[in-house]
């Protein structure tokens, strides 16, 4: 907030100070380009973070609600064990419902692998019981212990085994996206610091004259800071726009399904890229200000 207020004061600042410092084309172009390129990359990093965030949420939400109990037993004991397992499940806190899949449902599950003509009835395939959880879910370890005693052929598959790495991977990707944004901001700050130092060095004579007539450091720095902030804002606005357009032009991957479906922005997510140009401006403001005040102290 303080940064924003300062920015506002800055943009309405003293135009005479700006005139005192002649523009240096090289540092202006460098700053514009850096801010633009970094903003472009930041849009993708942001899209990646938001998409993987959505993915992780969806996976964990979907997977957390259901689990499966698999019963392997000789054909003559299958019905009894299934009934026993359902009974155990129905008395387990946190289980909303437990329902053995029908033969047809099991067949449909296997069809993609074995084709439509699989004689499910004659094969010793396990029986699956679909468990729907409620509230906070059930205590998997406790349930396993009870099942082991009462239904020896039951194997509880609560999906955590394979769900966790997936969610972890999605979360890791989201973290990577955020780290990329932080790195991009840091690189922007570094580049702008270098550009500002180059501008200060190129204007050593101007600074000397201003100092001799009684200009304070903040006044001299202000001329540079204002200029670099506006350049970063402009460059980042262009880069952000280009990044958004590029994301809009991504081929729709819905048909192929899978991971890519989500890359992009959805709903209010579209507002996030709008943060990038002001963020670049704030970064430039503080980077230039620090560089200018430090250089001015060292120059005298």
């Amino acid at each position, binding site marked *: 907030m303080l940064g924003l207020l300062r920015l506002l004061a800055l943009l309405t600042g*003293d135009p*005479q*100070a700006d*005139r*005192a410092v*002649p523009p240096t084309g090289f540092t202006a172009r460098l700053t514009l380009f850096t801010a633009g390129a970094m903003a472009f990359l930041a849009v993708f990093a942001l899209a990646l973070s938001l998409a993987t965030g959505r993915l992780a949420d969806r996976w964990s939400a979907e997977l957390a609600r259901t689990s499966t109990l698999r019963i392997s037993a000789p054909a003559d004991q299958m019905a009894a064990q299934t009934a026993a397992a359902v009974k155990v499940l129905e008395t387990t806190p946190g289980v909303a419902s437990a329902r053995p899949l029908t033969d047809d449902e099991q067949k449909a599950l296997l069809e993609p692998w074995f084709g439509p003509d699989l004689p499910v009835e004659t094969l010793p395939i396990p029986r699956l019981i679909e468990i729907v959880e409620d509230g906070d879910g059930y205590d998997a370890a406790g349930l396993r212990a009870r099942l082991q005693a009462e239904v020896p052929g039951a194997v509880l598959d609560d999906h955590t085994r394979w769900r966790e790495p997936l969610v972890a991977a999605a979360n890791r990707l989201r973290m990577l996206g955020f780290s990329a944004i932080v790195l991009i901001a840091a690189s922007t700050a570094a580049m702008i610091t270098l550009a500002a130092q180059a501008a200060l060095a190129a204007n050593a*004579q*101007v600074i*000397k*004259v*201003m*100092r*001799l*007539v*009684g*200009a*304070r*450091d903040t*006044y001299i720095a202000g001329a540079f800071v204002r200029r670099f902030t506006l350049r970063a804002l402009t460059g980042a606005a262009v880069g952000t726009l280009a990044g958004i357009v590029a994301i809009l032009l991504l081929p729709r991957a819905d048909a192929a399904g899978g991971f890519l479906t989500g890359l992009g922005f959805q709903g209010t997510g579209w507002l996030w890229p709008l943060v990038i140009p002001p963020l670049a401006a704030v970064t430039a403001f503080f980077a230039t200000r620090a560089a200018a005040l430090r250089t001015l*102290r060292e120059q*005298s």
Partner: protein
Amino acid sequence: MAKVLHPFAGFRPATVIETPRFFGQNTQTGTKGTSVIELENVAYSYGGGELFSELNLTLAPGSFHFLTGPSGAGKTTLLKLCYGELIATSGQVRLFGADARAMDRDGIAMARQRIGVVHQDCQFLDHLPLAENVALPLSVAGRLSEAAGNLGDLLAWVGLSEQAAQLPPQLSGGERQRAALARAVIMSPDVIIADEPTGNIDWEMSQRLLTLLVELNRMGKAVLVATHDMNLIRAAKAQVQARVLRLKGRRLQAAGADL
């Protein structure tokens, strides 16, 4: 000469009446005692031997001092001590009553706004027209609005009205010196410090510049001019009560008698 005095005569009433701070006798200098700049037992060294030592100097309001001495004696260095560009290696320099050594960077900047300096090598912002260069001290002090009425008069006073829109590199040596003087006085400073202001200009131009300095002094400004131009000093002594100081052999001496 008359050409110089004429526009100036028109300049003074307008500014003195409308903006008393401008060129008028400064009543609220905040100065402790009567002196604006005081050097007490000052020594300075660039790292090698001491350039001078045990140096005492007091600039009172309305005083006029010349500083002479052979080249390399340390005149420029002494002036830099007087406007806070350098800090004495020992002794005390007081700017408007405050110890220069104890001032922070902003404090020095504020003191500079009350000291008009004409440097040996008049440096300007080469990309800005003369008028904006002259107004620069007001601009950096955030008082640019005050330039509106005075700038034109001031440029007329130094005889540079027609050059107002020119860039500094287009000006002659004498024009630069007068522009530097205009810039030095636009803030209506309490002290004017000039370092060899007539160093590379012809005699007639030197006379014009001297007249301007004398006029400023008559308005109550303390004036300190470093020069080795004895003719200039003689010409000044005819117009104003000036003290001549000589920097030689690491000491500052009064040198009025031999002139």
